[in-house]
């Protein structure tokens, strides 16, 4: 239905014009940030850090650390400590089936173990800084649209509040706070992804490839972010996505080599640090084959706990392909909008990954204020927010009934997990719809007419 999306390269008269716009916005933003925004941002940081510091010291911290919604076998702090203890004893940290972090991570924590709380707080704040700059560049494509679309276009003023909103959404999101207080290493993975996004948007192909490799090295799934990163960098360099152009192939090859090269360096470094390949099965095998069926907010555990063993391989493939598969259609559909594609990919990863936690959800939720110009086109936002809210409250209640009281059972908990994920999928698809809808209106005008002159409505089927 939305086949008439204008290609960016056809519609822009001169690249310089676009560039000027960008510079204007970015410059304005910097001035604004330094004057008006500094105070509220500082206040926000102080509040956010105070909340975390208080929670670290309170008795709630132990409780939160045990919650299955907040920590998964992949990123639980308890397991990191166990791995470190094994490392100190001279045993491979992967001996036994407890530790599943990557070798670089364990060496990182080897040095900062005493300052763990600070590390987690700093990483949370850093992510916000990283997400900040991303937004400034996301500029507007000025006056090449029909006149009645003016109200759809974001004014620089609206744009300028986005960094503050993003910061609020990330720092004060209860999911982030919980994840940080539980010292889930998910926060660090988020930081790596945020670094990747920042360097991509700054247009540094090398840094982007390195951080993407680091993110992939940490948890495989960010592999799917390769496509949007490549698309964005191509767009920045005005290289059209065209199979017959040598410049396209040249840059793609470059980027692939940078990516694979840095990935190879990291893997080899890990091998030399521990002198064994144990970590491959223990980290990536663990992520892909899902042997740990501890309940979490994902879709895997219940399904694989119920399944007959001989179907397991087949369904694991089906479930895992889910994460990677959507990259292809989405990349085709959103090839002019790589930043939105990044958002979609991160959301899909956090829904379909094998051991999701609330920290992953917090990352893509931090993007939502950046799309606040889509708000008017969202259709189910009320329904979705109510369901997400109710589910978040019901998780601990049903867990209590199942595990402690023994009166409910796993079906109750899984029902809520399902509902939670359905709500997330609805949220993401709603944003996707709204984005396409806005693009459609930008091209065709806000008030659509049928051929006979009557008012038309858009229906997505």
């Amino acid at each position, binding site marked *: 239905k939305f086949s008439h999306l204008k290609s960016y390269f056809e519609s822009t008269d001169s690249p310089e014009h676009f560039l000027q716009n960008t510079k204007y916005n970015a410059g304005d933003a910097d001035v604004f940030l330094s004057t008006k925004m500094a105070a509220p941002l500082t206040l926000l940081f102080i509040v956010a850090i105070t909340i975390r510091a208080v929670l670290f010291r309170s008795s709630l911290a132990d409780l939160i650390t045990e919650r299955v919604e907040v920590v998964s076998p992949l990123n639980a702090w308890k397991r990191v400590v166990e791995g470190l203890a094994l490392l100190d004893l001279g045993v491979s940290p992967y001996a036994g089936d407890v530790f599943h972090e990557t070798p670089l991570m364990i060496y990182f924590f080897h040095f900062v173990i005493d300052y763990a709380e600070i590390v987690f707080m700093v990483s949370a704040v850093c992510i916000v800084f990283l997400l900040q700059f991303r937004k400034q560049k996301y500029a507007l494509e000025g006056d090449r649209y029909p006149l009645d679309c003016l109200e759809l276009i974001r004014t620089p003023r609206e744009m300028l509040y986005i960094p503050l909103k993003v910061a609020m959404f990330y720092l004060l999101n209860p999911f982030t706070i919980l994840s940080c207080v539980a010292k889930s290493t998910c926060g660090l993975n988020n930081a790596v992804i945020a670094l990747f996004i920042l360097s991509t948007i700054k247009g540094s192909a090398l840094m982007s490839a390195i951080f993407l490799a680091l993110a992939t090295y940490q948890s495989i799934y960010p592999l799917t972010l390769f496509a949007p990163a490549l698309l964005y960098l191509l767009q920045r360099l005005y290289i059209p996505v065209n199979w017959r152009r040598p410049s396209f192939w040249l840059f793609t090859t470059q980027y692939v080599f940078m990516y694979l090269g840095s990935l190879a360096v990291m893997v080899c470094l890990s091998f030399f640090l521990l002198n064994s390949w144990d970590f491959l099965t223990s980290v990536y095998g663990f992520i892909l084959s899902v042997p740990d069926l501890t309940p979490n907010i994902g879709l895997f555990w219940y399904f694989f706990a119920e399944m007959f063993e001989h179907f397991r391989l087949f369904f694991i493939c089906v479930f895992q392909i889910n994460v990677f598969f959507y990259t292809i259609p989405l990349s085709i559909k959103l090839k002019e909008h790589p930043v939105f594609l990044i958002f979609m990919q991160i959301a899909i990863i956090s829904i379909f990954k094998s051991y999701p936690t609330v920290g992953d959800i917090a990352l893509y939720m931090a993007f939502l204020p950046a799309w606040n110009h889509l*708000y008017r086109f969202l259709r189910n936002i009320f329904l979705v927010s109510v369901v997400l809210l109710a589910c978040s409250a019901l998780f601990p209640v049903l867990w209590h009934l199942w595990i402690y009281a023994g009166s409910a059972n796993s079906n109750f908990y899984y029902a809520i997990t399902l509902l939670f994920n359905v709500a997330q999928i*609805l949220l993401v698809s709603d944003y996707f719809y709204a984005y396409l809808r806005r693009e459609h209106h930008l091209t065709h005008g806000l008030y659509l007419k049928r051929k006979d002159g009557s008012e038309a409505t858009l229906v997505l089927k």
Partner: protein
Amino acid sequence: MGLLSDPNRRRALTNLLTRLNAPICVVCYLAGVMWFMGLAFEPFTLRTYMSENAMGSTMVEEHFPAGERALATGREFAAHKKKVGGMPVNWLVKTMESRGLEVFTQSFTRKLPFPDENKERYLVRGTNVYGILRAPRASRTEALVLTAPCSQGNANNQAVGLLLGLAQYFRSQVYWAKDIIFLVNEHDLIGMQAWLEGYHHTNTTGGDWSPLHGRGGSIQASLSLELSSDVITSLDLVLEGLNGQLPNLDLANLFHAFCQKIGVLCTIQGKLQRNDWESTSGYSHSAQTMMLMVLKQASGRPWGDHGLFLRYHIEAATIRGINSFRQYKTDTTTIGRLLEGMYRKLNNLLERLHQSYFFYLMPSLTRFVSIGYYMPAFGLLAVILLLRALDLWVQLGASAPGTEDGLAEREQDPRFLPLLNKLVISHMTGVALYCLPVMSQEMAVQHFPVSETEAVVLTAIAIYTAGLALPHNTHRLLQGEGTEHGWRVLKLVALLYLAVLLGCTALINFSLGFILALSLVPIAAFITPPLSAAIMVLLSPGCTLLYCVLIFQELQETPVSLQDGWMLFLSVISQGILDHSLYGSLVYPLLALLIYPCWLLLWNILFWK
């Protein structure tokens, strides 16, 4: 998905829901209440049946002969109790040892936050005595418990006698595959709490007790025996435990099956089974029984000594002997045989009781209503909140129903930030209601001529009432939000908050959630600024509690005057606070920290200027 993506159908549905919102809400409320009342109607309920295979097909034979001797032991126990003026520890230890049990004692001390005037205790010291009969037939990894309380005065002497008699008899049997622990606990639930926490190595409420020196396996089931006369007319089964938790229905089935087999009259909530469900009186009888269960469950307190076992995932019930003026009497030997039969069946268990229901209401001992049948009653009430919230959301112009969606520029987003003040102030009042009564009792006693208990209760009521004055004072502080838009947003937040809160409560304790929904939903749904304040107050959580007390007395056929009802209401509040600090009951913190602030939010709307 058509509904979610097709704007035309969405608009039609939204229009329907907004136009007919009030009638739909009224219909839902009435339907919810009627559904609930219908639950007691016999054709709508299910007959109880034994689900557990291990207890079903294998009938056991009971031979317990020594009822008279048990009574004699009971009298001996009474004499020693009188002599010592409390628990005759040495005598009990000696007697249990002579019956071939491994005997241990546990001493405990507990200082209550304020004196308990109902049971007249403040600083509690006591000793639990328990003996373990080791299982001769299996690896001793599992255990069953039989408890009898050592009460003050002349109560429950026969229970202890029967317990010792059963211990002696069980010792001579060879078929036990689980350890059997015979426990005599002092100071009812406080002793029970000490023993259970000692047994499971936990300490949730900060009591002071000596560790246990002997343990059996993991406890599978437990029965508490209360027996105060030599002969009884009927046995009453008490199921309601801490926070409204119930044991597996199979335990009730087991009790009922043996009562039928041996021919003992059995009751639940003190009400006999009736067979005339077609008649009005028959229906009202079962409705009363069910309402009693609902009220007891909603109170969240343990209604017998078994109540604390449930927290540790141990199925437990209290069996209480009742001696009324009926002709037909049952002697102790028969009760002993009944217990023997039940323990032998429990002994056959291969795994924990889990086959049958955990969520149920019982209109009579042979009939039950499971969660699938009673949840719709609550759902119908809760959906009102969501419908009203949807209506408000539409009114706030968020989804612009008139034109094609998304085209009309939305109004200013609902601004949630100014509401933060109100939320914080309401919750601070809630925190004050939770903390201050116990903390400020000393000060209150110094300045007013009241006892500590009265001080606590009256402080709680004072803070509760003072909260009502908040909107007047805070309005002056928080300027610039007295708009039409403002209260709608506040109401939207309050509605959603209440819906989530009640939903979670109803899952843990259906009765509590339902009673709260019954009183809070109407005001939450239909409150607008000019609504009468009197209705609001009359349906507030505090008043709901008062009605519950009066209705409970009415149902128990001991109606009280309004004056006595008020005194009872005061003692219920103090009991609620004590239950929370002694056993960790959640009703008081739930009401003080969550429900009351939520109600205050609604109260704020009333005085919106």
